[in-house]
């Protein structure tokens, strides 16, 4: 069956999103109700899930924009959706509907004033990877260097803005009841729209390239500024394969554990030392090599951490809330924000205990090594997120951190990695924080609608 292409305009996209929402939620809720009262057999459940996931993929695949991103968000949460749906949604990550070579070339020329073949020694007209908002082509520079050229779909920013407007209307009831604060939507909007500006991503790449230099096993693409514009990003080519291909090679447990440890260290390193996080940690953004090296790509969505995340993780590792009211207030304040009433936030302590218990086992004889293959952490986090929404304690600061965290644990789960989380955290926590931050304003950034880049302090 041929997928209809996306419809431009708020109304058409609204109708499509609405159709997806209504048809899926309607039927899913109906199924849940049926299940509660009548009970269901497994076969019917699987059939239902497959039908739903096909519908999800068809609708999301033709929408691109926000829905595509939401599709990715969902697919990252492997425990939050049925397996059949995950299989379908996984396709969305690396198989976005592509631009043909003529359109990709036209976008390149509109952005840089020349066709790719005038800039590069060679340029592959067929993309080798799909990015959520564009696609990536291989190229060879004039000096023979291997390059990856990310080209954005035309008018994707407008499409995203349309979807976000729609999302704002659709979430009105939840915003009125306080289950979905408007500030979360603002944060989501900020993150998504930032991703559409490749100049901003180039800033992020340079920042993380310098910031992660101490982790010798991590490669971050180097930006070629002379061939980069708002919708074209040219960077060095990072070798490696994505998770699925890596796992197909049946890597030994030792290598999987090593990579798991490194991915976790990379995560803590960003939080603690850089106070900035690559927030789109879905498997397509990690490239693995047989020697355990990791390539981290796609820095469109970056979260600058404004709160003391080190104290938070230390608090979780030591269960500081048990030491007294002040310590509990401190940790809960960091997680749920100063605006959330303490009494309400306190209800989350039980879930926090469980999560901390999995990540940082305590007590005599407890195995310090966490088996991510069990996936219990994802389950707990999924429950915690549901509870946070129900209890109205969601914190916009965590919108992208949670997304990244889920992505990380999902990756570790699929790697079936066993990692001593406490040891990794303590190793990272011993490092100095690189902050405080400077946010210099340059002409390019003033032009780029006032967005400010992340810059590592020189001292």
């Amino acid at each position, binding site marked *: 069956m*041929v*997928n*209809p*292409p*996306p*419809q*431009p305009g708020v109304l058409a996209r609204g109708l499509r999103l609405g159709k997806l929402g209504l048809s899926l939620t309607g039927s899913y809720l109906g199924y849940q109700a049926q299940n509660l009262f009548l009970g269901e057999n497994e076969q019917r459940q699987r059939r239902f899930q497959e039908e739903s996931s096909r519908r999800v993929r068809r609708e999301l695949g033709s929408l691109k924009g926000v829905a595509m991103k939401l599709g990715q968000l969902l697919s990252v949460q492997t425990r939050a959706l049925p397996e059949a749906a995950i299989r379908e949604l996984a396709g969305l990550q690396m198989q976005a509907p592509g*631009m*043909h*070579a*003529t*359109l990709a070339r*036209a*976008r390149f*020329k*509109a*952005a840089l004033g020349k066709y790719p073949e005038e800039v590069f020694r060679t340029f592959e*007209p067929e993309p080798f990877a799909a990015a959520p908002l564009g696609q990536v082509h291989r190229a060879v520079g004039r000096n023979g260097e291997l390059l990856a050229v990310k080209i954005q*779909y*035309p*008018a994707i920013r*407008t499409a995203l803005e349309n979807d976000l407007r729609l999302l704002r209307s659709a979430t009105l009831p939840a915003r009125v009841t306080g289950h979905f604060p408007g500030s979360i939507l603002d944060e989501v909007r900020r993150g998504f729209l930032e991703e559409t500006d490749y100049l901003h991503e180039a800033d992020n790449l340079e920042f993380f390239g310098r910031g992660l230099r101490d982790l010798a096993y991590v490669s971050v693409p180097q930006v070629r500024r002379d061939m980069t514009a*708002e*919708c074209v990003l040219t960077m060095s080519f990072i070798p490696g394969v994505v998770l699925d291909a890596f796992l197909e090679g049946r890597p030994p447990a030792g290598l999987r554990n090593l990579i798991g440890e490194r991915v976790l260290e990379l995560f803590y390193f960003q939080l603690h030392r850089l106070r900035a996080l690559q927030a789109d940690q879905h498997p397509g953004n990690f490239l693995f090599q047989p020697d355990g090296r990791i390539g981290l790509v796609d820095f469109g969505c970056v979260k600058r951490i404004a709160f003391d995340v080190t104290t938070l993780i230390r608090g979780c590792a030591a269960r500081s809330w048990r030491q007294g009211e002040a310590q509990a207030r401190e940790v809960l304040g960091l997680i749920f924000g100063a605006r959330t009433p303490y009494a309400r936030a306190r209800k989350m302590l039980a879930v926090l205990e469980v999560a901390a218990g999995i990540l940082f086992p305590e007590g005599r004889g407890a195995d310090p090594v966490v088996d991510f293959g069990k996936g219990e952490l994802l389950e707990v986090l999924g429950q915690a997120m549901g509870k946070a929404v129900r209890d109205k304690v969601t914190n916009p600061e965590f919108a992208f951190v949670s997304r990244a965290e889920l992505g990380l644990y999902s990756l570790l789960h699929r790697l079936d990695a066993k990692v001593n989380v406490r040891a990794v955290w303590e190793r990272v926590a011993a490092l100095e924080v690189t902050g405080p931050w400077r946010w210099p304003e340059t002409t390019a950034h003033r032009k780029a609608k006032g967005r400010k880049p992340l810059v590592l302090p020189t001292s």
Partner: protein
Amino acid sequence: MTTSASRTAVAARPPGRGRRAENKEKNRRAILRAALDLFARKGFFHTTTKAISRKAGIAEGTLFNYFPTKEDLALYFFEEELAGIIGWYGAQPRLKEAGLPEQLFAIVHRFLERLGPYEDFIGAVYLRALQPRSKLSPLSLPSQERNLRYLRFIRGVLAEAAAAGEIPEVGDLGAYAFALFHLAVITYWLQDRSAGKEQTLALLDRCLKLATAMLKKGGWEW
């Protein structure tokens, strides 16, 4: 510029053979190049015939012999562009292997790309074309002749796609429909103020994919 009938006849006459005809064609192109350059820099309405003739290195009177009106200049410009695009398309082996949406996209995009520097000029031509007595009107004979060449070219592209089984036979109507669509895209492009005219690119891409998908699904029956 004047609108005398005798001068119009000179401009409309097809290029003859021999050295004289060659020189005439050379002069025409030099005038067109000079005019387009000035249109791009100063705009259509602010460009004088004096400036064009000076830039082309000919006497103002000679200019009128070739192009009595700006409409004649525009007609010649479109003739040249169409011939250029048909020639360019024939020399693109990769496009022959591409899908129909990409082929049609490439044709329209190439056209828009060539028009890009002369947006002001094209806008003015559009306004003129709305006047029934204008030579640029779609109903005028010179416009009809050019349209026929264009329609034959598009019919050929569609017929190749049909022969390859990509779409069902769409006949002459398919070419007419695409010509109307092409006109609509140019109109949209003229008022598109987005960076790099990305809205036009998106519209063009989506419409062509949608139309091809519909044709594949049910021919004209959908």
